[in-house]
């Protein structure tokens, strides 16, 4: 069915209003103003900058721990210490190794985990505040609009088509059907966060992958309110070990925030071998460890969420420039997985993209060659030096925790080179071990409803909602694979790795069927990443749907 779409022309279209996209917009608006004020020609306008955000408001889909290294924010907003919604400065840092019953405090906190001078923040609040500054600068942010498809013109990207609104569950137009807009732009900036849906297809179709494919971890997080005195604001703890075994990459965090709030979570690399591993369950178990339990006892769950993190590092960065297009932030894997920090790089990359864009608009040249200046800027900035120093970090854990730590030690004294440089790594979904006669699946985790929760209860606390009568946004290419092959080879890991109970294998006469509860989806992208056959394609649902990560 050919639809007529309304067309709008922009100069710059930024897809995603997270720290990267908003930093780009804010810096771009400033640079444009400076350009015009100094009589630059041609004159540029902030009116031609559009930012798209699929969430209901700015910040609704933002989730992170988070401990922010403020260096990029200081460049973007020099008076940030007074005006940004920082929760509390970090005043105590500790690293622990957990066994099933004990917590061993590391005598020296490893340098990458030292956070003096950093701040505990809610990335959602940070994004909201940045969004306010962007709107004040005269840039339009369109919330509840997703980038559904890229528009190509020859080799270049020419813009984005937003999602159709008002289709029923069979795809047929409802009374309020509005076709997506055709937003054409001279430059499209993809700032979609980890495993962006537009970015994923662009990188695959144009073979933009770096030396290593992009790889991810899943972070499962809860925000708690605990009895007064239980936690000191500014206390930052990171853990290794239990409940993850030594073949798995990941670790936990517990951060003390103001007003008796605690941010805690568990990060697990999405390259584990056991297809029945359940990251949500592992996090619930993490809370039962005496080290964590004594903090939470008597407290109350406030919010829940999950998101993926791009941890591949330097060698996983894809080509970030094309004719008419730049990829920034988490979408470009600009994250230091050793320090567990990416927000500062997201902001900095947004600023560097803004500089590149103004140069291109001034010269009237938006070709790939012109925009490649972005990558040079990234390489020459502190993003480059920081990521190069940990360029083999994540890969060195492929063969387990202890080898990984050994490699890391060598990398530390060789400026990142280590014993193998570059260390290659396969995509996470290729790392499963087939079930091969493994016994029956263990029973699903129920939780006690007080300290630990089942998935559905947690999903409720993510505030996620979607318009029910719309097409399912999780496209499974061939459900026969689920029912005939995957069930035997991997035991349908989607039921385990999805932190929102979206996927269920239900009994039916004569066998099983895949049931997709899409309205539970928290937009983490784990399924798109971790599905062993790569047949799940996550596309944006109708804008506005998704979690409500207030305070996360």
């Amino acid at each position: 069915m050919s639809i007529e779409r309304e067309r709008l022309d922009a100069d710059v279209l930024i897809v995603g209003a997270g720290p990267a996209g908003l930093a780009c917009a804010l810096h771009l608006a400033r640079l444009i103003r400076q350009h015009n004020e100094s009589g630059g020609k041609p004159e540029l306008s902030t009116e031609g900058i559009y930012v798209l955000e699929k969430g209901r408001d700015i910040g609704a889909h933002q989730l992170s721990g988070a401990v922010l290294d403020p260096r990029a924010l200081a460049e973007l907003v020099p008076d940030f210490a007074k005006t940004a919604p920082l929760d509390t400065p970090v005043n105590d840092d500790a690293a622990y190794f957990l066994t099933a019953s004990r917590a061993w405090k590391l005598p020296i906190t490893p340098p990458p985990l030292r956070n003096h001078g950093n701040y505990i923040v809610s990335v959602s609040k940070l994004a909201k505040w940045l969004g306010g500054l962007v709107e004040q600068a005269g840039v339009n942010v369109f919330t509840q609009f997703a980038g559904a498809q890229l528009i190509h013109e020859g080799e270049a990207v020419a813009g984005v088509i937003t999602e159709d609104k008002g289709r029923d569950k069979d795809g047929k137009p409802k009374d309020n059907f509005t076709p997506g807009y055709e937003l054409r732009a001279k430059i499209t900036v993809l700032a979609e966060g980890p495993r962006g849906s537009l970015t994923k297809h662009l990188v695959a179709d144009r073979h933009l992958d770096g030396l290593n494919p992009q790889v991810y971890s899943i972070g499962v997080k809860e925000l708690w309110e605990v009895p007064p005195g239980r936690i000191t604001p500014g206390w930052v703890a990171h853990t290794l070990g239990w409940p993850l075994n030594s073949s798995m990459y990941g670790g936990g965090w517990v951060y003390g925030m103001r007003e008796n709030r605690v941010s805690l979570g568990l990060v697990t690399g999405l390259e584990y071998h056991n297809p029945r591993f359940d990251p949500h369950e592992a996090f619930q178990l993490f809370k039962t460890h005496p080290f964590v339990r004594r903090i939470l006892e008597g407290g109350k769950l406030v919010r829940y969420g999950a998101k993926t993190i791009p941890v591949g590092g330097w060698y996983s960065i894809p080509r970030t420039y094309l004719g008419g297009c730049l990829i920034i932030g988490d979408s470009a894997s600009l994250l230091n997985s050793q320090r567990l920090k990416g927000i500062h790089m997201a902001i900095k990359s947004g600023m560097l993209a803004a500089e590149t864009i103004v140069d291109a608009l001034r010269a009237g040249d938006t070709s790939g060659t012109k925009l490649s200046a972005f990558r040079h800027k990234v390489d020459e900035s502190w993003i480059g030096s920081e990521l190069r120093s940990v360029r083999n970090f994540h890969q060195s854990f492929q063969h387990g925790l202890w080898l990984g730590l050994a490699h890391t030690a060598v990398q530390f004294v060789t400026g990142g080179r280590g014993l193998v440089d570059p260390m290659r790594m396969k995509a996470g979904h290729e790392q499963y071990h087939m079930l091969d006669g493994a016994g029956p699946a263990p029973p699903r985790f129920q939780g006690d409803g007080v300290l630990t929760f089942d998935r559905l209860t947690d999903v409720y606390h993510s505030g996620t909602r979607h318009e029910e009568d719309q097409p399912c946004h999780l496209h499974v290419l061939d459900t026969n694979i689920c029912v005939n092959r995957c069930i035997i080879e991997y035991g349908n890991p989607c039921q385990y790795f999805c932190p929102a109970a979206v996927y269920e294998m239900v009994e039916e006469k004569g066998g099983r069927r895949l049931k997709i509860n899409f309205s539970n989806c928290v937009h983490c992208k784990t399924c798109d990443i971790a599905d062993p056959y790569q047949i799940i394609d996550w596309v944006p649902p109708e804008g506005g749907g998704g979690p409500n990560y207030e305070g996360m």
Partner: protein
Amino acid sequence: MKILVITEQRDGKWNPVSSETLLAAQQIAAAQPGSRVAAVVIGKGVHGLAEEVAANQLAEILLVEHDLLDKYTPDGYAIALKQVVTQTQPDLVLLPHTYQVRDYAPKLAASLGKGMIADCVGYRAEKERVIFVRQMFQGKTAADVSFTGAPPWFVSFQAGAFRGDQVARGASAAPVTAISVNLQAEQIRTKPLDLFREAKQAVDLTQAPILVAIGRGIKAPENIPLAEKLAKLMGGELAASRPICDEGWLPMDRQIGSSGQTVAPKLYLALGISGAIQHVVGMKGSRTIVAINKDQNAPIFEVADYGIVGDIFELIPALTEVLEKK
């Protein structure tokens, strides 16, 4: 404090939530000495209903009748009630939070330049003022809201927030006073058509006094008639949790929960329902909750007043048998 309750009727039949609002008014009045509660009955040919309401412990019934109020229209009700409020000068105007009230009450309040606190679940009477409690974030928090500025103050209460059957009866019938209002046909900008009913029989689960709800424990659609029969014998309606409607075993209008309807019947019988929080938020206001589930750890038992750890396929026939004998 002078309190005015706007009751609701359609085609000569009460919306039972009106009784809940009357009780709320009586309770608030009791907490504020020297208070007075009057009730409005609005429509056409509703004198009989007014006399019914008069049996309750109220100071006065105000009968507001007009040809143009025969069928509900937002303009008709808002214009008529604005005159009533202006004339009687109440401090507090209480309404039940029904679909109809959602339609005209904001318009009414705005026409008097006043705000409205809607969908409240309770109140707290303090010395100087009344604080109203409403839920936020899908029931996860409760907010205390009070009015600044002069009366009249408009408040609506959520269905199930008060027990309609506890309205105090009066020692003698309250006087019924007719109030005349001015309404011109040109003022009414909408024309009500026939009431819309879904294809088959319409079911408004929020009006059913008894609900028999089934969950995954029912196992197969073939077993649903068992529950349906029980519901009929009990004089109730059949409802379901989400998985049943997702499978298409029952239509979506039977669904109770955060993505379905919110109900507060006198009796809610939950059969084979685990009690996930998404379902519970849709029915926890029920007067009495009875749950039957095989799993003793099912969260439904935390909200149930009476619970049976047992097999619904034993208990439904047993209950049915007992009811058939009556």
